[in-house]
């Protein structure tokens, strides 16, 4: 087994550590990574980061840096030719199919010029080290390069696990690279005449369910730029704006993390209506800069590889420094013959991306396929040879990774570069991707090329070792730049506000659901539950229609269905899932601790065994998560709009749920005192007022003080009046809702009305019964529920709602044959 010498130096150094100490360091690494868990959206977690970095000597780095930088320049020059003169094609150097049979060539970008001629601002190149020590490029990512955020996180983790080694080995720092990236982005909109302060750089993130999303949040946070989604963008008068609570804010540069096809539904032939309509017009008008520029996806076409040496000579007048893995196009008859003579030595890839499929097509290594699959592949190649390229399998050198012991693995190194008008820079470090090998026979086929970390793949940090001491530099505290203290919290996009509002509501829902469920479970776990007169009322209060039919025969099963079943639309799990999803989307807006809690909200051991008592520990977990989140939010969120929308949501939902509870349990006044008392007991218990009640009134339960405590008592933090008072306080600071104005806003008027009704309510009268029904109480409660729902609707309409957008319409005569 060949191993590169530099790996040994590191391993020798860590061998000096005891096994216990080493394991301790690994745990430290994983703790750091878990805190920033990048991969929870990918199903697994970040445990796949290996403690041992890949080491690159200063000398090797010279070669790699030059090679990667040249490729970055080369692809930029290529993009300029593709979307400009097309000199390479007019001269007969390249097949026409490469451009015109390629779905990634965007016709609409032709003759559109990016700022400073820079198409590819950020690039990445995957490099493998061969057994002879030479390097070869496996693939380049030139549209939305993945892994930059993960490289950053791995660096933070590994350098904290081995701080002394990190320093003593003189490892190059990454921060300088990020600064260059950021400077480049800033310079772009200044170049197009942005107005400095007012226009800004934003990161246009991939959708929340995209594996890349977590990394997007890391990058946005590290660069200190707002993360936006398509829905946050508004285009007016061919200017791009970010929709915020304070109104529209002009955007100068979009650092995009979404693919070409998702950018403008009007021009890019997607009928879904996704994307920012009119973006291309804005770009053409020179009103906004985009990095990487539109259309750069075409550069990733595998078919370009075999022409790169020639393209490099033609466009840069240089020899290609970092060679590619040997690639042949099967559309060329002689090449096809050569490949098909010994297919087992090749890896087959589609020449072009399948249209509508943004993912890379899975490469097929002939040698590792089953016989049937081999036959099918050969048939596919035969029927459309020009749709295929073949890459030579290669033996790459092995490295060590740790899994209880040092184990050989094959690896790839992903390096990143930025192109700016001031030149090209390569990040001294990168993302290592590895896979354990079981045999010596390794090939490029088994080297991971995908973007996500699957179970078999792990990641490594890459350390570039300097010959000289390395200067300390961090983006987190820019030197020589004084920061003026500010109380404003930046701009809150309306979408983020909506998510916080929804999160608040979901948190309150889950809390009340869990409390009702606990009330039921506690009673059902008593053997004499059949004799508990209050039980049917509580069941009706908590469980919804779908469970109703099961109620009569089997309340325990109905309860389980309510608590545990994921497919129950009205059940608790749906709300818990929503909380976790919203947490994911709000990652860049909330503290790490809060995010961690939301990420694991309601995820606890599913109760084993039967009997309602078995459900109690689970409900306790949910309630304690709920308390923890409330506490963390109160502790960690600044009192800006973020906090306000979360609070609004929580209070609105809490008030509504409490009102509904009161309605369900106190609507009927049973004639027998026993039932009456037990209902009062239950409503206090579930409404969380039992303690307060006992302290104030002792053990005697009476309906008037109970109603007062739950509805009107503003000193009880669970009462409806308390929620409404807090709502009004939070609403005071919302834009356009200044309560010092002489005229009241519709929102404030509604809030005041609700509060006044509660304050003025005559509780004695509410408790009166007519034929065993407390009609007055119900009238008030219903009116209150309506009012509060109206308040929610006003908040929604004023601050959150996005008008629905329709798909793309074509006005054609075929539509109107009747006319």
């Amino acid at each position, binding site marked *: 087994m060949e191993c590169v010498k530099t790996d040994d130096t590191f391993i020798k150094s860590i061998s000096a550590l005891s096994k216990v100490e080493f394991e301790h360091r690994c745990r430290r690494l994983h703790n750091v990574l878990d805190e920033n868990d990048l991969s929870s959206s990918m199903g697994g977690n970040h445990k796949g980061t290996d403690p041992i970095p890949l080491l690159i000597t200063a000398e090797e780095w010279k070669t790699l840096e030059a090679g990667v930088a040249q490729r970055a320049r080369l692809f930029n020059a290529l993009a300029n030719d593709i979307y400009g003169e097309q000199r390479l094609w*007019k001269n007969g150097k390249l097949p026409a199919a490469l451009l015109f049979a390629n779905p990634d060539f965007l016709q609409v970008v*032709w003759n559109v010029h990016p700022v400073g001629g820079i198409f590819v601002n950020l690039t990445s190149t995957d490099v493998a080290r061969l057994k002879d020590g030479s390097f070869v490029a496996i693939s380049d990512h030139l549209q939305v390069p993945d892994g930059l955020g993960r490289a950053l996180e791995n660096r933070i983790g590994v350098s904290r696990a081995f701080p002394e080694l990190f320093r003593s080995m003189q490892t190059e720092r990454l921060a300088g690279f990020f600064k260059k990236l950021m400077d480049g982005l800033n310079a772009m909109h200044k170049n197009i005449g942005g107005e400095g302060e007012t226009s800004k750089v934003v990161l246009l993130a991939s959708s929340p369910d995209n594996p890349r999303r977590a990394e997007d949040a890391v990058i946005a946070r590290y660069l200190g730029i707002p993360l936006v989604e398509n829905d946050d963008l508004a285009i*007016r008068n061919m200017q791009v704006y970010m929709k915020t609570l304070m109104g529209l804010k002009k955007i100068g540069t979009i650092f995009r993390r979404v693919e070409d096809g998702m950018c403008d539904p009007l021009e890019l032939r997607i009928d879904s209506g996704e994307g920012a309509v009119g973006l291309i*017009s804005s770009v053409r008008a020179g009103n906004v800069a985009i990095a990487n520029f539109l259309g750069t996806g075409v550069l990733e076409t595998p078919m370009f590889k075999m022409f790169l040496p020639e393209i490099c000579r033609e466009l840069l007048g240089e020899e290609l420094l970092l060679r590619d893995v040997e690639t042949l196009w099967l559309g060329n008859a002689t090449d096809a013959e050569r490949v098909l003579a010994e297919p087992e030595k090749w890896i087959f890839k589609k020449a072009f991306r399948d249209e509508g499929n943004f993912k890379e097509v899975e490469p097929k290594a002939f040698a590792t396929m089953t016989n049937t699959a081999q036959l099918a592949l050969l048939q596919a190649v035969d029927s459309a040879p020009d749709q295929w390229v073949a890459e030579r399998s290669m033996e790459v050198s092995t490295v060590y990774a740790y899994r209880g012991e040092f184990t050989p693995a094959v690896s790839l190194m992903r390096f990143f570069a930025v192109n700016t008008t001031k030149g090209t820079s390569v990040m001294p470090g990168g993302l290592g991707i590895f896979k354990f090998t079981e045999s010596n026979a390794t090939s490029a086929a088994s080297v991971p090329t995908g973007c996500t970390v699957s179970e078999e793949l792990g990641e490594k940090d890459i350390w570039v070792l300097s010959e000289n001491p390395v200067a300390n530099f961090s983006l987190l505290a820019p030197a020589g730049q004084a920061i003026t203290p500010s109380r404003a919290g930046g701009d809150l996009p309306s979408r983020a506000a909506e998510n916080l509002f929804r999160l608040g509501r979901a948190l309150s829902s889950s809390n009340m659901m869990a409390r009702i469920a606990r009330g039921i479970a506690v009673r059902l776990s008593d053997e004499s539950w059949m004799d508990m007169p209050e039980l049917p009322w509580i069941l009706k209060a908590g469980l919804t229609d779908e469970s109703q039919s099961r109620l009569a025969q089997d309340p325990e099963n109905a309860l389980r269905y309510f608590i545990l079943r994921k497919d129950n639309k009205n059940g608790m799990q749906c709300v818990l899932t929503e909380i976790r999803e919203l947490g994911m989307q709000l990652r860049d807006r909330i503290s790490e601790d809060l995010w961690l809690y939301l990420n694991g909200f309601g995820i606890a051991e599913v109760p084993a065994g039967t009997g309602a008592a078995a459900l109690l520990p689970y409900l306790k977990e949910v309630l304690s998560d709920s308390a923890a989140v409330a506490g963390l939010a109160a502790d960690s969120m600044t009192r800006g709009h973020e906090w306000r929308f979360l609070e609004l949501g929580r209070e609105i939902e809490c008030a509504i749920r409490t009102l509904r509870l009161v309605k369900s349990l106190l609507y009927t006044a049973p004639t027998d005192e026993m039932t009456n008392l037990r209902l009062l007991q239950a409503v206090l218990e579930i409404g969380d007022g039992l303690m307060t009640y006992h302290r104030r009134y002792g053990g005697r339960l009476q309906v008037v003080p109970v109603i007062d405590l739950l509805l009107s008592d503003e000193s009880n933090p669970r009462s409806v009046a308390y929620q409404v008072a807090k709502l009004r306080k939070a609403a005071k600071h919302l834009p356009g809702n200044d309560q010092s104005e002489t005229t009241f806003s519709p929102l404030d008027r509604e809030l005041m009305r609700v509060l006044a009704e509660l304050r003025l309510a005559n509780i004695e009268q509410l408790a009166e019964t007519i034929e065993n029904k407390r009609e007055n109480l119900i009238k008030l409660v219903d009116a209150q529920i309506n009012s509060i729902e109206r308040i929610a609707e006003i908040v929604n309409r004023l601050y959150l709602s996005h008008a629905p957008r329709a798909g793309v319409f074509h006005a054609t005569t075929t539509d109107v044959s009747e006319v």
Partner: protein
Amino acid sequence: MPIYQVDHETVYDYRLPVLYSNHLAHMLPRTVSRQNWISHSIKVDPNPTIQQERLDIFGNRVLAFSIEQEHTLFRFKTTGIVDVQEEKPPKQGETMKWEDVTKLLERPTSDETLDAAMYAYASPFAKFDESVRNYALESFEQDRPIFDAAYELMTRIYTDCKYTPGVTRIGAQPQEILRGRKGVCQDFAHLMIGCMRSLHLPCRYVSGYLRTHPCEGQPKLVGADATHAWVSTYIPGHGWVELDPTNNVLGGNEHIILAWGRDFGDVSPLKGVITGGGEHTLKVSVNVDVKE
């Protein structure tokens, strides 16, 4: 050398107010050797908030505009007067063998051949499969001159398919048309394009208008004309030749060209994305009148 006046009006009537809308129109006249636009005007109601004119990769003049005020009615009207001439078609038996055209365009060496190569591969609304290729090969026999084969293909599509409005959706693929053998001008154009491109031969989608003749003894109905679509193929040494598979004729002085692209998607006369609006009704009326 007829001179036509073409009026083309598109009206969207929305049930709910539209807050803002973005549109892209391929209705500005382009310069073509056999056509001369004497005058052309556009009226948009409500007035666009902002507009941008540009040249696309196919050489069409594209108008992008947005309307950023609430509206429930959108009207787009063009009026143009154009002088149209006929071009001399190539002679049967005298054009290049089709296989040589394919070969020539594989690695273009000039602006002209590179431009032609752009139309020689599958595009979003004009893909093809084995069935389309086999259908094409019946006309594209070995060593046959490209014009002869293309003409025959046009005639076969005309004979094999029945003009039937309302049975196909926008953007039906060539293989679907071939299976159903029914459709409108757009579909027949796409089928012909798919056939030619399956052999990597260049074929453009041409969008425009056609002069119609009222049935004998009946007055011409105002607004009853329609936009039309046909194709154009590149013949080395001759240039682009227009073929109309819907009518089994070559493009002549009754075909008025608006724009061309790889398929309908590149040259949709007027498309848009609206915010708000609810359901809508669409009225398109086209009138082609002979001035002299």
